[in-house]
């Protein structure tokens, strides 16, 4: 399985993906301070508010997930390169599992890096332009690291929401991206609809997990060329 996951990376247009990641990381790491300065200073009052803001901003990585799903699944169907994989002595379920694992590892790791860069950038920029009005403690750092792992896991799961229906079944890039935009923004809008934010995240993660399950389970039927 390790080898199959690695081969997924070899097949991709690596330079363009790396460029995409640089853009994502650069934007996301500057957003918290920009948001506090330009939209609401309330988020700079204590660590919990700031970390909620950072977690919400990192959900932007769901969009990178949609891009990866498009390149790993949809493009392979459109260019018919998926037929090459089907001709190898590997079952479709295993091939799809390798693709899903690759996307999951990729999104999880990039989101971890993004959390780290955002934390460091926010701290360093605050030294130059003081916007945050509290001091960071040791327990804040521990909370940040544990929250970062949970947050990355959540982003990874939510990223898979469009996989089954829009990517594998419909093979539609635009719909995949739109679905990702809606999914990543829903938790931000849950207070407007008086909906519990945490419950919303649990529901989205469950849909993502279900989408992965159905994609692998039905690989032989829905995944037909």
């Amino acid at each position, binding site marked *: 399985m390790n*080898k199959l996951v690695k*081969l997924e990376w*070899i*097949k991709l*247009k690596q330079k363009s993906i790396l460029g995409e990641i640089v853009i994502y990381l650069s934007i996301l790491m500057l957003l918290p301070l920009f948001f506090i300065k330009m939209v609401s200073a309330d988020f700079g009052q204590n660590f919990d508010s700031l970390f909620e803001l950072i977690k919400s901003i990192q959900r932007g990585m769901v969009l990178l997930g949609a891009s990866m799903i498009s390149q790993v699944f949809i493009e392979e169907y459109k*260019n*018919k*390169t998926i*037929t*090459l*994989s*089907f*001709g*190898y*002595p*590997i*079952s*479709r*379920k295993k091939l799809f599992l390798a693709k899903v694992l690759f996307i999951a590892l990729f999104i999880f790791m990039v989101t971890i890096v993004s959390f780290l860069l955002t934390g460091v950038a926010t701290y360093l920029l605050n030294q130059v332009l003081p916007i945050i009005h509290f001091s960071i403690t040791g327990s804040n750092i521990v909370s940040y690291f544990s929250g970062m792992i949970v947050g990355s896991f959540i982003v990874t799961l939510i990223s898979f929401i469009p996989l089954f229906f829009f990517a594998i079944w419909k093979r539609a890039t635009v719909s995949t991206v739109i679905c990702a935009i809606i999914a990543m923004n829903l938790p931000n809008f849950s207070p407007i609809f008086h909906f519990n934010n945490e419950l919303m995240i649990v529901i989205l993660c469950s849909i993502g997990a279900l989408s992965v399950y159905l994609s692998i389970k039905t690989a*032989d039927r829905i995944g*037909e*060329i």
Partner: protein
Amino acid sequence: MNNAIRTKGLTKKANGRELVSNINLHIIKGEIYGFLGQNGSGKTTIMKMLTGLMIPTCGEIELLGNLLTEKTKSVLKRVGSVIEYPIFFDHLTAIENVKLHCDYLGFYDDKAISEALDLVHLKGVEKKQVKNFSLGMKQRLGIARAIITKPELIVLDEPTNGLDPVGIKDVRDLILMLNKDYGITFLLSSHILGEMEQIVDRIGVINNGKLINEVSLADIRKQRTDYIELVTTDVEKTVYLLESELQISNMKIIQDKKIRIYDWTQSLNTISKMLVLHDIEIEGIQKHISSLEDYFYKQINGGRHSE
């Protein structure tokens, strides 16, 4: 008999329509077998199922003595293929594409890669991105990829598509060489019947998703009835002269002016010279050699050549 491919009741349905139905195929190890059929007859669909690209709706596939199903695909390690047209990751170079293929098959032999590229005359362009390749180059790279691991069975769908006459001859020679020197079994399909006639040992005629007949080229040749067709104004005198002057007796009068000579003891030239000497007006004379093409048309529409 030792089969390289055996199918039993192979059927594929899509959108409520049967694309191929109840195919019982027998391809013997070491032979070159060709599919003949019109566009849309189901040749490619059968090939896709035989190479794991499509899952059959029902029926069995046995490759090299092993059952092929989604759960038992390991036999595909011993099969090479190019179906429809050669597909590559266009942004990768030729060598990267070939190495990727080898990685999937767990085959690591740089010498074999180099030899395969050499065989299809692609040495020197292996570091070029495939998006810059012509269709002919892609076709040759596809064949190189299919033969690299020296599989026991190779399935090639229209392997000469996009090739110039020299390329076509190269591919034909390559197939014959791999079959003769390495004993590789081939399943081919082509629209160029003349091409098929020069390579294949046996053919399977596919029409409307059904396998109509499997026959060897040797049998077709045995059945064929070659003749000289002569059109003249004086049939009676011509027949008399052919019998008396050239001792030709095996002939038949067709319509009023046509004579078919089935006796090949005299050449076309000798016959026409003799008739001219006896002042017989010849309106037409030509050799007619029945071919695979005739056989094919007889099988699919009772001998009428379709446009």
